[in-house]
C-alpha cells in the first residue's frame, strides 16, 4: 500500500496526537505546545509545497484520489488551520481554559477536511465528513462555562446528527440505484436506466441536503447564526473558513466526477433554486442583526449562495470562479474573526458596543476590519469583488444557453447590494462611533498580528493580481 500518498493527512494526525499527549504530560507548557502545533501545521504546509506528489494517484480501491485539485485544497485547508490555531492561542477565554485539546481537535478536523478533498466514494466521504462534524461538536461547545457556547454546541449537534441521518438515508438510495458508491462507477451505472435515475435523484437530493449542513445552504442554514455567535471565536472562524471550504470542495468533486443526477445536466433546477434562496436568506436575514458574530453567520449563508450559484452555472470558468472565491473568502473571513478574537467581550460575543471606536483603540484592527468587510461586500480592489464578478460572469455565460440564469444573476446582484448595508453598518461602529470612555487601547498579540497581515496581504493580492490563482484553478480542473 502506498501510504506516502496519505503523507499530509498522516502528518496532521500525528501532530494532533502528539499535541494531545504533550499537553497531558507537560500541563505547564500548554501555550508553548499550542503555538508549536500552529507552527507544525505551517511546516507541513510549507513542506507539502516542495513534495513531489504522484500525479493522479488512487488508494483504497479508488475511494481516495490524489490529484492537483485535492492537493491544492489540502494546502489551503492546512493554511486555514494554521491561522485558526494562531488565533486560538490569542483567544482569552480559551487561554483561561488551558490545555491543548482545542488545538488538537482543530488539527483532527483539518485531517478530516483534507480527507474530504480526496474523497471519491460516498462511504469515504461520509466517514471523513463525520470526522469533521463530530470534532466540531466539541469545538463549538468548548467553552463549557458559557451557556451560549453550550447552546451553540447543542444546536450544531442536533442538526448535524439530523443531516448525517439524511445523508445516510440518501446513500442507501444511491447504492440501491447505482449498485456502487464509488464516484467513478455511478455515472456508468445510471446510463439509460430511467427508473434507477429517478431513485438516484431522490438519494442524491438527500445527500445534498446532508452536505448542505456543512455549506450553510438553505434549508440547512438555520444553525449558522446561532452557532457562529455562541461558539468560541476561533472555532467559528474555522467553521466559516475550513468547514465551508471543505464542503464546497466535496460539491465540486461531485461535479467533476459526473455524479450529479443526469436530470440536472440540462438545468440543475434544484441547485438554482437553492442558490437563489440561500443568497436572499443570507442577505435579508443579516439586516436586523446587531451582533457581529451573528451577522457573520448570515454573511456566511449569503456567500454560500454565491458559491452555489457558481457551481450551478458550471462550466470550466464557473468552477475556476468557485475555487477563486473560496480562497479569497478564506482570507476575508479569517481576518474578521481575527479582529473579533481580540475585541470580543468576556462572554465571547461581539455586539455593536464591542466595536465602537475601534479606529482609536487599535488602528490595525480597524483597518483589517475595513478591508475584510469590504472584501466580503465585494468592493474593489479586494479579492471579494473579483470573486463575485467571476461568479457573475460564469452565470451570464450559462445564461446565454439557459435564460433562467439571467434571473439568478439578478438575484445575486440584488443580494450583494442588500448585504452591503450590513457590512457598512459594522464599519460605522468601528470607524464613526466614538470610543466608549472606559475603552482602553487594545494591544494586539503578535499571533493575531501575523494572521491579520497575512489575510490583508492575501485580500489585496487576490484583488489586484488574480491571474496566478485563476491559472492555478484552471489547471486544477484538468
Amino acid at each position: 500500500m502506498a501510504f506516502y500518498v496519505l503523507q499530509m493527512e498522516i502528518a496532521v494526525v500525528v501532530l494532533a496526537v502528539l499535541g494531545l499527549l504533550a499537553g497531558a504530560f507537560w500541563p505547564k507548557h500548554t501555550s508553548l505546545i499550542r503555538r508549536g502545533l500552529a507552527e507544525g501545521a505551517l511546516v507541513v504546509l510549507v513542506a507539502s509545497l516542495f513534495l513531489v506528489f504522484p500525479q493522479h494517484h488512487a488508494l483504497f480501491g479508488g475511494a481516495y484520489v490524489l490529484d492537483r485539485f485535492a492537493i491544492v485544497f489540502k494546502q489551503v485547508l492546512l493554511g486555514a488551520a494554521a491561522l485558526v490555531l494562531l488565533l486560538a492561542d490569542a483567544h482569552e477565554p480559551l487561554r483561561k481554559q488551558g490545555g491543548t485539546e482545542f488545538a488538537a481537535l482543530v488539527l483532527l478536523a483539518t485531517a478530516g477536511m483534507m480527507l474530504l478533498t480526496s474523497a471519491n466514494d460516498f462511504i469515504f466521504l461520509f466517514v471523513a465528513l463525520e470526522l469533521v462534524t463530530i470534532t466540531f461538536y466539541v469545538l463549538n461547545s468548548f467553552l463549557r462555562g458559557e451557556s451560549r457556547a453550550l447552546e451553540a454546541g447543542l444546536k450544531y449537534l442536533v442538526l448535524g446528527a439530523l443531516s448525517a441521518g439524511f445523508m445516510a438515508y440518501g446513500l442507501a438510495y444511491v447504492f440501491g440505484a447505482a449498485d456502487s458508491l464509488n464516484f467513478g462507477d455511478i455515472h456508468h451505472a445510471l446510463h439509460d436506466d430511467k427508473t434507477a435515475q429517478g431513485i438516484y435523484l431522490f438519494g442524491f437530493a438527500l445527500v445534498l441536503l446532508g452536505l448542505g449542513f456543512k455549506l450553510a445552504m438553505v434549508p440547512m442554514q438555520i444553525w449558522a447564526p446561532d452557532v457562529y455567535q455562541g461558539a468560541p471565536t476561533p472555532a467559528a472562524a474555522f467553521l466559516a473558513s475550513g468547514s465551508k471550504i471543505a464542503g464546497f470542495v466535496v460539491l465540486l468533486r461531485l461535479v467533476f466526477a459526473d455524479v450529479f443526477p443526469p436530470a440536472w445536466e440540462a438545468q440543475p433546477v434544484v441547485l438554482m433554486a437553492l442558490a437563489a434562496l440561500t443568497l436572499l436568506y443570507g442577505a435579508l436575514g443579516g439586516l436586523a442583526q446587531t451582533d457581529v458574530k451573528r451577522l457573520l453567520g448570515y454573511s456566511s449563508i449569503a456567500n454560500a449562495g454565491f458559491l452555489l450559484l457558481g457551481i450551478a452555472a458550471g462550466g470550466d470558468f464557473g468552477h475556476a470562479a468557485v475555487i477563486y472565491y473560496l480562497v479569497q473568502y478564506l482570507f476575508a473571513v479569517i481576518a474578521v474573526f481575527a479582529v473579533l478574537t481580540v475585541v470580543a467581550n468576556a462572554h465571547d460575543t461581539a455586539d455593536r458596543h464591542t466595536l465602537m471606536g475601534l479606529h482609536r483603540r487599535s488602528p490595525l484592527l480597524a483597518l483589517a476590519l475595513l478591508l475584510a468587510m469590504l472584501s466580503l461586500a465585494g468592493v474593489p480592489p479586494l479579492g471579494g469583488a473579483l470573486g463575485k464578478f467571476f461568479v457573475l460572469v460564469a452565470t451570464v455565460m450559462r445564461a446565454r444557453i439557459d435564460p433562467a440564469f439571467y434571473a439568478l444573476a439578478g438575484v445575486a446582484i440584488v443580494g450583494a447590494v442588500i448585504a452591503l448595508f450590513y457590512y457598512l453598518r459594522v464599519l460605522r461602529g468601528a470607524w464613526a462611533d466614538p470610543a466608549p470612555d472606559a475603552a482602553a487601547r487594545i494591544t494586539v498579540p503578535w499571533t493575531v498580528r501575523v494572521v491579520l497581515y497575512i489575510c490583508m496581504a492575501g485580500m489585496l493580492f487576490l484583488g489586484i493580481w488574480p491571474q496566478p490563482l485563476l491559472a492555478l484553478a484552471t489547471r486544477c480542473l484538468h
Partner: protein
Amino acid sequence: MIPTTLTPGAFALSLTWGLPALTILVLALLPESRARLIRGVSLASALLNLALVAGLIAAWPAHRPPAGAEVPLAFAARLPWFSQPNISYFVGVDGLSLLMMLLAAIIAVCGVLVSWRIETRAKEFFIFMQVLLAGVFGCFISFDLFTFFLFNEVTLIPTYLLIGVFGSGRKEYCAMKLNLMLFAGSALVLVGLLGLYFASGLHTFDLFALAQVRFPADFQHWAFPALFLGFGVLGALFPFHTWSPDGHSSAPTAISMFLAGVHMKLGGYGCLRVAMFLLPEGAREWMNVFLVLSTINILYGAFVAVKQTDLKYINAYSSVSHCGLVLFGYAALNFLGLRGAVLQMFSHGLLTALIFAVIGMLYGRTHTRQLGELGGLMTRLPFIGVAFTLAALAGLGLPGLSGFVAELNVFLGAFAQTPLLNKVCTVLAILSIVVTAVYLLRTINKVLHGPPQEKDAGLKDADLAERAAILILLAGVILMGVWPRAITWLVDDALQPIVEQLAR
C-alpha cells in the same frame, strides 16, 4: 497598434492615481499628531497631481493620434491584467478625459486647502480623500470598461466613511443612502457591461473594440437603459437623485466639493462614454424618455431649491438641477448638445465646488447654515461675499462666466432637434433659469445683504488657504466664461467619434 508595455506616457497617466495611492502609504506612516505635516503632504501631492495633469495637457497636442484613428487616445497602453475573462489595464486619454482630470485635480487642490483647519482625525480624513482621488483619476484614464468600473467602485467606500465620520446632520443615514443607491446603480452598470462583453461576441471589455461592433437592436433596447440609468444614478437622474441632496449636504466641505464637483461627473462621463458611444441605436430609441426625465430634473431641482432654507441643501438641489442640464444636453444627440453637456460638467464642477467651499467657510464662522439666521455678511466678510456673488451669478448663466457658455451650447443643441417634444422641453428648461435666478439671488440677498448682525461682529474674512482655494476656482470660472475656446479646444475632437457613432 497599442503598446502592451508600460510606456512613459502610460506611466505618467498611471501616476495620476499612483500618486494618491503613494500618498496614502506615506500618510499611513506619519504619526497622527503631526497634523501640519499630514496636510502639507496632502497638499503637495494634490499640487503635484495638478502639475502632472497640466503637463499631460501640454504634451497632448504632440501625442494625439490623427483624426479617424481606431483608438483616438494619446499615451495609450494596454497591459493584460487577467486572461479569463479577458481584462486588461487599458489606459489612455483624449480631450474629454483630460478635461475631467483637470477638473478633478483643481478641486483636489482646493479641497485640501479648505480642509486646512481639520484637526480631529486629520490623518484618516486625508487618507480617505486620497482613496477617493485615486479612484476618480483611475476612472478617467481607463478605457477597459471593467477597469473603469472597478475604479468607480473604489470611490464608493471612502465616500461612506468621509460622510459617516466627518459629516454633519443625519450623516449616518445620508451616507448609507448614498452608498446603497450608488452601489445599486453600479450593479445596473455591471449588468450592462456583462451584456456588452457577451453580446459583442468578442469577449472583451475594450471600449474601442466594442465600438466597432453593431449590437443587435433588441440587445440595445435593454442594455442602453441599464447602462444609462446605472450611470444616471451617479449623475443624479430624476427620480434616482434623492441620495445627492442628502449626501452632499451632510458631507464635510471638501468632500461636498469633490462629490458634487467631480464624483457626480463620473456618472455623466459614463453615460456619454459607455452608454451613448456603444449603443447609439438604444440612445435614439430611449432618448425621449431621458429627455423628459432630465427636464423634470432641471425644473424639479430648481423649484425644490427655492423652498430650502439650509444653504447646503439649496446648493445640493441646484446641483441636481444643473446636472440635469448635463443629461439634457446628451438628450439632444447632436454635437452642440454633447459639447454643451461636457462644458456644463466642467463649469458646474467648478461652480458647485466654489459654492460649497463658500458655504463651508460661512458655516465655519457663523456655525449656522440656516437662511433665517444669516444676514449682512458682505460687510463682515467681503472676500467671501464677492466670491459667493460671482459663483451665484455664474450659476444662473450670466454671460462672461462659465455657466453661460455651457447653457448656451446645451440649449442651442437641444432646440436644433425638430420634434415638438424637444422644442417644448427646451423651452421649459430655459424657463428654469428664471427659477434659478430666484433662489440664487434670494440666497445672496438674504445671506450677504441687509443689516449686519451683532453676533457676527468678530468674524474674520478668508485666510490665505481659503483665499487661494477661492481664487483658483474663480479663475477657472472666469477663464472659461471669457475664453471658452480654451476648453472647447480640448473637447471638440473627443466628441467627434461619439457624434459619428450616434449618426450611424
